[in-house]
């Protein structure tokens, strides 16, 4: 601190700093490291992801309340046989990758939760009480800007800043600057995790899209991502060149 020649102010400022320091040093009530839930291991999405499949073109079996404009966009994408991002080994982003059936890992570090996905995507969720960055300062991303906080054993995540073109794994559904997702991650029991979500955007959804996905802890070690465009399939063809016999 620069000397100001105003001891009282300096003293008050120092006290304030100490207070802040103490506040930072003490286990913050909403994310005490020792009291966080056990989400260790590897998680696989259950039947809820099958239902949200891309086979239904992001319709979640008709449960996504799209506005007429976006219904038309999706119909057009379907007619054009639009491929999803993953077809080209591009990230599916938030929330598409979480309903795609890839394995998940959750890492807790102070002030942050990180989700690592089997295809190599990484989602950073900051739990240090920061605010969202202004939209104009964000680089286009697949994951969006995620701020989280703990409510007991539930992680609540608020996400904005969606990229253009990854909503529900794409299919012509382009996010807007108003797209907003709130998720609540909580254990149903020891080995089952639920994520209750509400997604809103006045341009895309006629009413809030409310959905829940479930994940089960599985005894599997996650491998390195293997996605290579042209690895056996290229859009609407498939490469039948067999791998080396000893692979």
């Amino acid at each position, binding site marked *: 601190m620069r000397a100001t020649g105003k001891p009282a102010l300096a003293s008050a400022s120092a006290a304030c700093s100490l207070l802040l320091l103490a506040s930072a040093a003490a286990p913050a009530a909403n994310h005490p490291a020792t009291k966080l839930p056990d989400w260790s291991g590897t998680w*696989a999405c259950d039947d809820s992801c*099958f239902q949200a499949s891309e086979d239904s073109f992001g319709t979640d079996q008709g449960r996504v309340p799209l506005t007429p404009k976006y219904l038309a966009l999706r119909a057009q994408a379907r007619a054009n*046989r639009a491929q999803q991002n993953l077809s080209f080994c591009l990230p599916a982003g938030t929330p598409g990758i979480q309903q795609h059936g890839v394995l998940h890992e959750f890492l807790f570090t102070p002030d942050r939760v990180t989700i690592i996905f089997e295809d190599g995507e990484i989602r950073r969720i900051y739990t240090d009480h920061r605010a969202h960055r202004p939209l104009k300062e964000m680089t286009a991303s697949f994951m969006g800007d995620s701020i989280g906080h703990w409510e007991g054993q539930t992680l609540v995540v608020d996400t904005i800043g969606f990229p253009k073109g990854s909503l529900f794994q794409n299919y012509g559904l382009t996010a807007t600057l108003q797209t907003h997702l709130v998720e609540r991650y909580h254990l149903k029991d020891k080995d089952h995790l639920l994520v209750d979500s509400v997604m809103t955007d006045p341009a895309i959804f006629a009413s809030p899209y409310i959905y829940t996905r479930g994940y089960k802890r599985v005894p599997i070690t996650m*491998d390195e991502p293997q996605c290579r465009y042209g690895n056996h399939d290229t859009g609407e063809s498939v490469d*039948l060149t067999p791998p080396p016999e000893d692979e």
Partner: protein
Amino acid sequence: MKPRIAALASLLAFGTAHAHHSAAMFDSTKCESVSGTVRNFQWVYPHTWVWIVVPGANASADAAGDIWGFEFPPSGSLALAPNWSRTALEKGDKVTIYYSPLRDGRHGGLGNTVVLSGTRILHGAPNAFACDEKLWKPGPSGSPIDAISTLKLENGRIIEP
């Protein structure tokens, strides 16, 4: 809708849920089978692949037989399915694979079910509508994860429904 049909429709609705590309190259209205010996088993994302040698299928092209390739769901999706794992299939295993064939007639397709040594059934769903309809009925959850096989295995023989 009758419950049985509703349940089946629900099962079929899963389709190729976790494919990472279009399944247009496969004819999902057909379910065929072929037997052979496992050459490679690739337990990977974005798709698990089973490569088998089918004896005599095309002897002029390959003296040992012909190599067929079958795409199955990604390892992360099969992780919840019974009997699947990285070591579920090994080189030399005798298998019969039920699949939806490639529309262009090449040797391979979208795999649905593997019968291993006539003793174990692996369900690679959700994949290939016709095979789900032919070989599986919904289990308690109605999802592919606990679907019940309608194949019967007797003394290593496969009895189709």
